[in-house]
Every structure is written in structure tokens, then in C-alpha cells.
């Protein structure tokens, strides 16, 4: 493995700016790594080798001509396959969009291009971002680089695995109920769900519009912040985009200090159903922050226990409406159009063949929750619970600066274990969902390996709406303290892909 692929984006940025390495060399190293390992990981649905090398050449030429370039110019990034790209297919992990090549770029896509970031390709995902394991992709599952028999989490599992497997230093994901933070946690990397509205949804294939939030995945907190600064900011093409200055997240990640900060441990996000090794690593992380000068208290958010059922009414309701656009008429798959069938019959046949089981379950669940006679008891009630959860956050942030919890109740589970057990699958997002319902910022950073299975555990930091910088500051402080304790970044101990690196780092995460 080339050392260019093990460097952080921040390190690459320095070497690119000084001219020590070229964007072409960096891009080629990552494409070589993808060619070497992606057959086993399957993080990518599409690798854009030619496009990436052309973009890299352009960055090199502009730099040689003395152009002023941003920090990520020449740094490779992997893009989740639910962002539209004019030069690459966009499937959202679904057969219904198989081979679709969008006529326009998402705002996130065009901002990456404008910054000179090199888009390596499109990453695998649960179909329409519905799932927590990437097993719901119509194109086969992604595997966890720590243990290829386990899931990488989801729905941004391809993005998380690409970063953990050193195929890309950075990746873009989307988080509707935990789809950035949960895969980041179980792959041993950093993932951030910014404040809702902080990143544009224009050109993002919609799942649940009031919850969907694009965000960064990276191997360090600073790298995530650099990527967020590149993609964030007001976009007139998205009516829910926040028209305010982006919080200074990279500066916050560099500040990395928690002295005097009040940290609240959420009482409801622990206990039954949580793996012992997850809880022990979480407690150690809290002690570490306390040792760094943070003031730790326990905080109760009583309605968080209703977040999961409320989410599984709100998200499916919005999805049943959003996915009505896949009607086989103007783009995408069309099945059974033999000249005898009506448009409605063709539509129903196409949707039955084009959507996978989980998407069908959620469309029908949403249709049920929104139907007259059930609306008040289900969707209406879930919306009230959403208010109560936002109020729990408000009350908690009156007492403390940030809230913390494990990111997921368990480490990565084996492929197939929960594939046809929706309720078990949904539990993977237990700790991440509250921040989607309330719209506040939340980040996951690795906090060690669970002793019982040697797999990564994520530490979640939740900050108030628009206080993304605070989440980065705490996560970076935790990251610095962990790295010092372990003697190296957690990921250096991953042994699923590169056996050779395992032996000299066996102490990882202890």
C-alpha cells in the first residue's frame, strides 16, 4: 500500500500545496488501492478512473500556473451514490435507477468539483438510504474492512468502508437516522451529521426530506471538518438550506480542548440491549474527557425512548411520498410495457420489480401511517413526539454544552444476521435518531475496540443546532487523547484487509 493512501487529507493538502506530490500521483495511488482491495470490500458501485485522473491533471495544471487553490484541491473523495453526477451513473443502490445518468450535478457534487477535490467514484449504499448494513443495496453488500464477514453499517456503508480501507481519505455520506455516524462507528472512523440545513440537499435523491442531511466521513476529525467547510453553506436551490455563515469547524477541530466544558451523559442511551464492550469503552471515553478538565454530569432525556418508533413513522411517511416519483414514465426502469397494459399497470409492475424488500416495507408502512383513519394515531402522534424530543434537547442544552452517548448499541454484526429481521435492524440507529428528529449537530469518533470481539466502538457527541463547531471541538479532544493512549490511530489496528499491519499494532484500542 502506497503511503499516499495512509495519509490524512490534511497531510495530503500540505504536500500538494508545497508541490512535493502531484494530484495525479495521489489519485493514481488511490485508484491502485481500489483496484487491489475493492473486489473484497465492494465499497464502490462505480469507479471513475479516467474522470478522476483528468480532474487531477487539471488541478496540477492550475497549480503549476499559479492559481489560488483551496485546501482540498487534488485530494480524493468518494461520493455516496445518492448524489447526482452528470459524468457517472447514479443509482441510490436501486434497480429502479440502474444505469441512470442524471442530467445535472447535485450542489454537493459541484462544490467538490469547484474545490478541486477528486471524485474517485460512487459508493455503495442501502437502497434509497434505507437500512443500517448496506445489505439492502440492489448491487450486493459492502464488507467491513475490519472483518470481511461483517457489515460496514449503513446506509453510507460504502463511503465508510472506502475510508476505512484506505481507498479514499474522505467520503461524503447522508444521515437520515444515523446513516453517517453508525457506519463510521462500526468501521472505526469519524462521521459527522451537521445541523439539518447546513448542507444542501439539491440533487440528493430524497428519502425523508425533513431528516436527510449530507455530511463528511474521514479518518480524522480535522479531515471531516475540512470536508464540511468545502461543501457547507447556503444554497438558494434548497429551500431548507440555512442562510447563515458556516460555523468555523476546522478551527474548532484544531482547538480540540474540553477544559471547563460541561458534558452530559444521556441516561436513556445505555443499559439493556447495549453490548458490554460498547458500554465499557464509552465509560472510559467519558473518564478521559473528565481527566482533560470537562465537567461530566448525567442528563435525562425521557422522550428519547420514543425516538425510534416516531422515526419509523415519520421517515416511512415521507419516503412513501418521495418515492412516488419513481413511476416508470420519464426516467429509470420500465417493466411490462407491451402495448396492452395501462400506465398504472406498468407503474405497479415496475415498482414491484425495481424496489427491494425494505423499500417496499417502508413505502407501505408510510402509506398506512398517512391513510385517513390512522393519521392521528400514527403520523400525528409521531410528530408530537418529535416536538417532545426537541424539547428534551433544549432542556438538556440548558444544563450542559454537549451530550454524549455510544453511537451504536453494538459493534458491527455479521452479514445476514439481521437482513430479514427489520425490527432488529432498526435498533442499530437507537442512539443516532434523536438528533435527526431535532435537527441538531452530532458526530461519531472512534473510542476503542470492544474487548469481546475486537471491533470498533463509536463515541457520539451531540451539540445544539448550529453549534457544529462545538461537536468538532469535543470530538477532536477525545481523538487526541485516545490516539495518545493507543500510540497510533485506531484504524492502524484494522486487520481484515492487510494482515501484515495487524501484528505490530495488537495493543490497539486497549
Amino acid at each position, binding site marked *: 500500500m502506497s503511503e499516499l493512501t495512509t495519509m490524512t487529507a490534511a497531510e495530503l493538502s500540505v504536500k500538494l500545496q508545497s508541490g512535493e506530490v502531484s494530484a495525479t500521483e495521489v489519485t493514481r495511488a488511490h485508484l491502485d488501492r481500489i483496484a487491489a482491495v475493492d473486489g473484497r470490500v465492494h465499497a464502490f458501485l462505480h469507479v471513475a478512473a479516467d474522470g478522476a485522473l483528468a480532474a487531477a491533471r487539471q488541478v496540477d495544471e492550475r497549480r503549476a500556473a499559479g492559481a489560488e487553490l483551496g485546501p482540498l484541491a487534488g485530494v480524493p473523495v468518494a461520493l455516496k451514490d445518492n448524489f447526482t453526477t452528470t459524468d457517472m451513473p447514479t443509482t441510490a443502490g436501486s434497480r429502479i435507477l440502474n444505469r441512470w445518468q442524471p442530467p445535472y450535478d447535485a450542489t454537493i457534487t459541484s462544490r467538490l468539483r469547484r474545490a478541486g477535490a477528486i471524485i474517485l467514484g460512487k459508493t455503495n449504499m442501502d437502497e434509497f438510504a434505507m437500512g443500517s448494513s448496506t445489505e439492502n443495496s440492489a448491487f450486493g453488500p459492502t464488507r467491513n474492512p475490519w472483518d470481511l464477514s461483517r457489515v460496514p453499517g449503513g446506509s453510507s456503508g460504502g463511503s465508510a468502508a472506502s475510508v476505512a480501507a484506505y481507498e479514499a481519505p474522505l467520503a461524503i455520506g447522508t444521515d437520515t437516522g444515523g446513516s453517517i455516524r453508525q457506519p463510521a462507528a462500526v468501521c472505526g472512523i469519524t462521521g459527522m451529521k451537521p445541523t439539518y440545513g447546513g448542507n444542501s440537499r439539491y440533487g440528493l435523491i430524497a428519502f425523508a426530506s425533513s*431528516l436527510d442531511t449530507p455530511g463528511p466521513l474521514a479518518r480524522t476529525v480535522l479531515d471531516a471538518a475540512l470536508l464540511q467547510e468545502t461543501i457547507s453553506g447556503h444554497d*438558494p*436551490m434548497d429551500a431548507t438550506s440555512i442562510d447563515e455563515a458556516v460555523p468555523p469547524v476546522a478551527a474548532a477541530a484544531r482547538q480540540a480542548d474540553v477544559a471547563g466544558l460541561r458534558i452530559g451523559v444521556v441516561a436513556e442511551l445505555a443499559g439493556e440491549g447495549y453490548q458490554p464492550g460498547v458500554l465499557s469503552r464509552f465509560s472510559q471515553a467519558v473518564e478521559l474527557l473528565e481527566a482533560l478538565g470537562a465537567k461530566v454530569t448525567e442528563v435525562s432525556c425521557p422522550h428519547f425512548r420514543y425516538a425510534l418508533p416516531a422515526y419509523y413513522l415519520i421517515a416511512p411517511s415521507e419516503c412513501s411520498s418521495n418515492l412516488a416519483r419513481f413511476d416508470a414514465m420519464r426516467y*429509470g426502469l420500465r417493466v411490462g410495457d407491451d402495448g396492452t397494459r395501462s400506465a398504472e*399497470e406498468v407503474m405497479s409492475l415496475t415498482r414491484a420489480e425495481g424496489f427491494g*424488500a425494505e423499500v*417496499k416495507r417502508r413505502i407501505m408502512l408510510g402509506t398506512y401511517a398517512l391513510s385517513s383513519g390512522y393519521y392521528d394515531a400514527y403520523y400525528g402522534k409521531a410528530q408530537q413526539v418529535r416536538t417532545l424530543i426537541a424539547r428534551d434537547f433544549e432542556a438538556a442544552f440548558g444544563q450542559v454544552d454537549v451530550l454524549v452517548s455510544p453511537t451504536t448499541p453494538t459493534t458491527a454484526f455479521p452479514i445476514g444476521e439481521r437482513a430479514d429481521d427489520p425490527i432488529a435492524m432498526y435498533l442499530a440507529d437507537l442512539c443516532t435518531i434523536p438528533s435527526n428528529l431535532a435537527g441538531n449537530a452530532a458526530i461519531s469518533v472512534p473510542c476503542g475496540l470492544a474487548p469481546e470481539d475486537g471491533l470498533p466502538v463509536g463515541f457520539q457527541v451531540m451539540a445544539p*443546532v448550529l453549534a457544529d463547531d462545538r461537536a468538532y471541538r469535543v470530538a477532536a479532544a477525545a481523538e487526541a487523547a485516545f490516539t495518545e493512549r493507543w500510540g497510533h490511530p485506531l484504524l492502524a489496528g484494522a486487520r481484515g484487509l492487510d494482515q501484515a499491519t495487524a501484528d505490530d499494532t495488537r495493543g490497539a484500542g486497549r
Partner: protein
Amino acid sequence: MSITRDEVAHLARLSRLALGEEELDHLAPQLDQIISAVARVQEVAAEGIPPTSHALPLTNVFRADEIVPCLPADVVLSQSPAVEQQRFKVPRILAEDA
């Protein structure tokens, strides 16, 4: 039992999903289990609590009314399952006996 197989079949029709018998047999008990689980929201005493439909309290968002070119017809039609005379070609929209 919170939902019957017949109701699930009705939901599939409303959702424009032409599901086979086998698929209905598989999905009906799963939907029943999910609906029972999410019904827990009804335990919450929410009398007088306003609903939240969105994380941000935004109303009447406007942007500048700038004229920009729309996508060329050939680009848009290039992704269509069927095209005729620069139009989307779709199956008949009325039933035979309508």
C-alpha cells in the same frame, strides 16, 4: 394482530406495487410486527403538544427570480424509457372500457 393480510394487499395497491402472493405472505407478518412496535408512540401523553414537521422553523423561503436556461430537451429525453417526437412516450392512461 394490528393489520391483516387483506389490508396489506390493499396498501400494496395504494402504493402501486404489484406484489405476488408469496411476497404478500412474507411482508404481511413483518408489517404487522413493525406497526405493533411503532404504535408505542401512542403511550406518550401529548395532549396539547404541537406537531413538528420540520427541524427548522422556516416559512416563506424565497430566492431571487433569476432567469437561467433549462436543461436541453435531448439531454432530458436521453434518460427516458421511450421517446417519440421529442416527447416522453408513455403507456395508455385510460382503461379499455373507460
